[in-house]
């Protein structure tokens, strides 16, 4: 019981932003049917935007967080308009789009170093207070981040499932031609979705950034895990992504309690690969709707 409680509390508090990031990536995957590697940099830039607002303009963390989300959303839309829409119009193949997104990822990751500097940058936040639950220690900040992530994930979920915009996004993802015939504006709907996805990624990055630091490799270091959560959990829609994200956090912390952290990550990756292999392409179409 003690072990389970520890695994759950540590997993949920430490990996909460993973759920947000995975939801953002899944939104793009659902609509564009392609994995956007540059999403890693949306996460990274979210962390930098938050840090920039927090340290340069002395904004408190929550204001920085909101602005980081908005700016990351705008950046996400810009990447769609400049790069991915052009690729779509030119009929570029799936592998090539993935490589293009890798190029964009590299471009942004190194480009941001000219703007924000080469070294890691830190948020200026008051020191957190330490708490304990079931004998497991965590910071007030981790608790706040967890609660905020749960609320935001719920809002994202409700937006996609219950609002008119969400229905339009899902309609466009299911059958673009039919959606257009029924009066949906594909560009506007796509931009709304890319904005939401970017905002989710940016917020995740800001949470990760304030927990450690804003550095160029922040998003890339977490990209693979986010991608695997989307590919495995995405077969069950956004609910599946949320569950897979939380499950991954808990499993990773459980493994880290038993074995060395790096070996724990290896075991988790091997488990994900096996799931991908066993699942094959059977749920592929389901995953994209």
């Amino acid at each position, binding site marked *: 019981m003690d072990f389970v409680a520890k695994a759950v509390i540590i997993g949920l508090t430490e990996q909460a932003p993973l759920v947000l990031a995975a939801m953002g990536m899944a939104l793009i995957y659902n609509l564009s049917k392609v994995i956007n590697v540059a999403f890693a940099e949306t996460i990274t830039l979210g962390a930098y935007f938050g840090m920039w607002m927090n340290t340069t303009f002395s904004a408190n963390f929550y204001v920085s967080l909101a602005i980081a989300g908005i700016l990351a959303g705008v950046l996400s839309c810009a990447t769609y308009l400049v790069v991915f829409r052009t*690729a779509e119009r030119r009929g570029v193949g799936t592998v090539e789009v993935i490589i293009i997104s890798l190029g964009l990822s*590299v471009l942004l990751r190194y480009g941001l170093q000219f703007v924000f500097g080469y070294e890691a940058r830190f948020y200026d936040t008051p020191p957190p207070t330490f708490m304990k639950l079931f004998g497991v220690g965590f910071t007030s900040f981790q608790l706040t981040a967890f609660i905020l992530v749960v609320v935001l994930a719920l809002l994202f979920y409700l937006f996609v499932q219950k609002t008119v915009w969400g229905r339009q996004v899902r309609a466009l993802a299911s059958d673009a031609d039919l959606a257009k015939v029924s009066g949906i504006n594909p560009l506007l709907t796509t931009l709304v979705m890319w904005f939401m996805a970017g905002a989710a990624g940016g917020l995740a990055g800001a949470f990760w950034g304030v927990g450690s630091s804003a550095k160029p490799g922040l998003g890339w270091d977490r990209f693979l895990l986010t*991608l695997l959560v989307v*590919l495995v959990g995405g077969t069950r829609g956004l609910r599946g992504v949320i569950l897979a994200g939380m499950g991954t956090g808990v499993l990773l912390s459980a493994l880290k309690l038993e074995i060395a952290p790096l070996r724990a990550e290896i075991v988790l990756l091997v488990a994900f690969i096996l799931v*991908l292999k066993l699942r094959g*392409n059977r749920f592929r179409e389901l995953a994209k709707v």
Partner: protein
Amino acid sequence: MSAVWDYLFGSPAFLIFGTYTLMMIVGLGILLHLQLGVTGIGNFGVAGFWGAGLYTFGILQVHYDVGFWLALLAATAAGGVLGAIAGWVIADLDDDGVLAATLAVATIVFLAIESEKDFTGGRVGLGTIDFPFDIGERTDLAWLAILFGVTGLLLWYARRVHRSPYGRLLIATGTNEPLARSLRKPVKRTKVGIMALTSAGMGALGGLYGPIVHFLFPTQLTVAITVSVITALVLGGQQRPWGAFIGAVLTVGLFDIAIKLYVPLPREVLEHAFPVTKQIIFGALLIFVLLFRPLGILGRMRRERHVKGLSRV
């Protein structure tokens, strides 16, 4: 004459190391060409397969005093086994799954090297690894000649594959997998086979890189290697065996040899701004080439051009 020689080859060690890197990228690019350009497998974990060979070679040489040839064979086998496993995993996955699986393989190799410090030295490093022969000052030049030979062999093999029945099978698998399957072509076996074969080549190149750097660090296996190889191949032409060579000369050759050797950049620029600018240009190249000239400088396969020409007649 002497002044010209001094200007061109004033820092021979630097020039030789830059050419080592160039040859390594060309070799990896030719192997990636067989995976991506011919068979349609987007391998985003090149650094992992290469690193598996590099570290297998290093561990055997440093810890077990294994001879050069046996260590190189083991490095090749390590890359091959890893490639066969990766091929088995991705055989029935779509492109997104292939991206995730190959990236995961590279990450696992990286994490294993960082975690198994007793064998790999972790972040402290593993060394030293020496050349298998010593002919004095010309040892590094002789090693460079060997690398040229290996790269030439890979190029020769890639060209042969294009003209062979096996090459047609690979092209059929890459161009239209469902059709190849319906024609009873062994698509799954083909993918596993080509991944094992080409990854074995990447492992061998990793083994050959060991004596060049003498000391191995996990930071040598970052995604930058994969990005350099993909950029070179995409720029030169992913469907052509010479594509990786042309692309590598224009990217790695320009940045890691020409500019570093002949442009007097201040030290602080060389340390930070230069590598960052190089990566920015690589990223921009990937985007622009694939958007506006998807088949790179050399264009489509010779076979396709020939068929297109016939259809016009």
